[in-house]
């Protein structure tokens, strides 16, 4: 069984730059400003959360990075060549093809590069093992629970070992127990392969537990309000979730988010 290669994760201050968003704005229909002057530097090995209320442009930022749309102004500068497909994506819905088995779904990124199933069978098996679905290769998505479907989706995003993984509120539709388990497993997975993650969420608790950087955003127009660092070392587990440090961090982030939302309510006067 081939292992997914491991990229070393350096301390935050020493990480090489992966991409930079310079003055990114996105205006829809010539009038609706979804994102206004966003500047962001993403470094290799970051677990960065975009946190904010709905309408703050966090999903727009993700779609811009994914190359699904172009910014109205500003530039996204990648460090080194960025091939299409060198990104893994997890959406809020599992987004699996219902007509294909679990293994065939995970095969998709390879298949679109023209690689046969047989040639990447081992890598698919490794990815499915990493998300705990080694016994479900031939199951169809409908036979799986919501959490298991999401695991397949995560395996598909990780299987090509891309340098960046984009996650758009992936666990928002899951129950609290499944969600915590998936948070734990996601950190373990990231620790194992050392990729870079941008994680969109509206949950303060989730963002603090998962990330080492949190970008707080506000709505109308969508913009970055504040950037915070979570210094707690990885691996983080149940102990961290119940620690005073975690409570203190969530408090700080909650305050930042409250200011971000409150900002807007003051505008109304």
């Amino acid at each position: 069984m081939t292992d997914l290669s491991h990229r070393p994760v350096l301390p935050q201050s020493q990480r090489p730059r992966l991409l930079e968003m310079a003055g990114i704005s996105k205006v829809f229909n010539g009038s609706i400003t979804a994102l206004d002057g966003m500047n962001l530097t993403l470094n290799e090995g970051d677990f960065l959360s975009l946190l904010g209320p709905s309408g703050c442009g966090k999903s727009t930022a993700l779609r811009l990075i994914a190359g699904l749309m172009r910014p109205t102004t500003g530039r996204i500068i990648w460090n080194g060549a960025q091939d299409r497909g060198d990104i893994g994506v997890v959406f809020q819905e599992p987004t699996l093809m219902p007509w294909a088995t679990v293994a065939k779904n995970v095969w998709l990124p390879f298949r679109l590069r023209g690689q046969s199933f047989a040639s990447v069978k081992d890598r698919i098996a490794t990815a499915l093992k990493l998300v705990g679905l080694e016994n479900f290769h031939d199951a169809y998505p409908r036979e799986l629970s919501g959490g298991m479907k999401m695991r397949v989706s995560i395996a598909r995003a990780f299987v090509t070992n891309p340098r960046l993984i984009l996650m758009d509120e992936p666990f928002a539709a899951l129950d609290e127990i499944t969600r915590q388990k998936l948070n734990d497993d996601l950190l373990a997975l990231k620790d194992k392969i050392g990729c870079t993650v941008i994680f969109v969420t509206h949950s303060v608790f989730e963002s603090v537990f998962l990330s080492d950087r949190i970008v707080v955003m506000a709505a109308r127009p969508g913009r970055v309000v504040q950037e915070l660092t979570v210094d707690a070392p990885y691996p983080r587990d149940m102990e961290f979730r119940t620690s005073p440090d975690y409570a203190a961090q969530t408090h700080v982030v909650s305050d930042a988010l409250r200011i971000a939302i409150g900002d807007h309510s003051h505008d109304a006067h």
Partner: protein
Amino acid sequence: MTPTDPAFDADEARRARNRRIEAVARWALPLAVVILTIIVWNWFSNSSATRGMIFPAPPKVWARFLADYGMLFTSLMVTLKITFMALAIAIIGGVALAILFTQSRFAELIFFPYAVILQVTPIVSIAPLIFIYVQDPLARVLICAWIVAFFPILSNTTLGLKSTDSNLRDLYAIYGATWWQKLLFLQLPSAMPYFLGGLRIAGGLALIGAIVAEYVAGISGSGSGLAFRILEASYRLNYPRMFAALIMIAIVGVIIFAATTFISWFFLRKWHESALRREV
């Protein structure tokens, strides 16, 4: 487990009983209805001598069927050939047009009105013109059957190709999928349930189209399908043969429906809601 088992409560017992009854009724009821129909029909035909002339009793129809078997069977083959050729062209044409429509909005805007006009204009009113313009006897009947059959395939497949999951489309775009990959791995599988629904309708319509075309072609020499046999038998006041041919057409229609239903189930059985059995 027996009904006295404590885990087998009254509710479950009733449900099990209903399941057993339904399992028998599933085939017994339709069979009973057919037998009853034949009995009533037989009684009605024999109730007066004149009535029996124009409404022949089942044994007479059966006897005629056995006597004319060779001729009727040859005609059946002609009708079947037209039906399946028309269905095949409808599938190829309908799917190809649907793909064109979903790739190009302009193609849809240009051609869709014609597809609708062809569909809503009764085939019997177009057929005489087709028979004037097209000389080949097979081709003219085929065109009629095709016009009737292709629309459900086209409209259903177009709908299916357009109903691909938008997140999956994004995912394919992010992975840099080519047009061909997107069509083959994403759009066509998504459209499968819709296409198969269209196929079930088109199968029946192809038969109807073939029969109607044969009728309109009349005795002008355009082959000798089952519809032509019915017309010919009516001129000769051969009522038993009319019934025999009619029943053959009905049975063919049922078989086509059953076959397309089976095909639909076969392709969707692993993943689509329509083909899955619900537990409890």
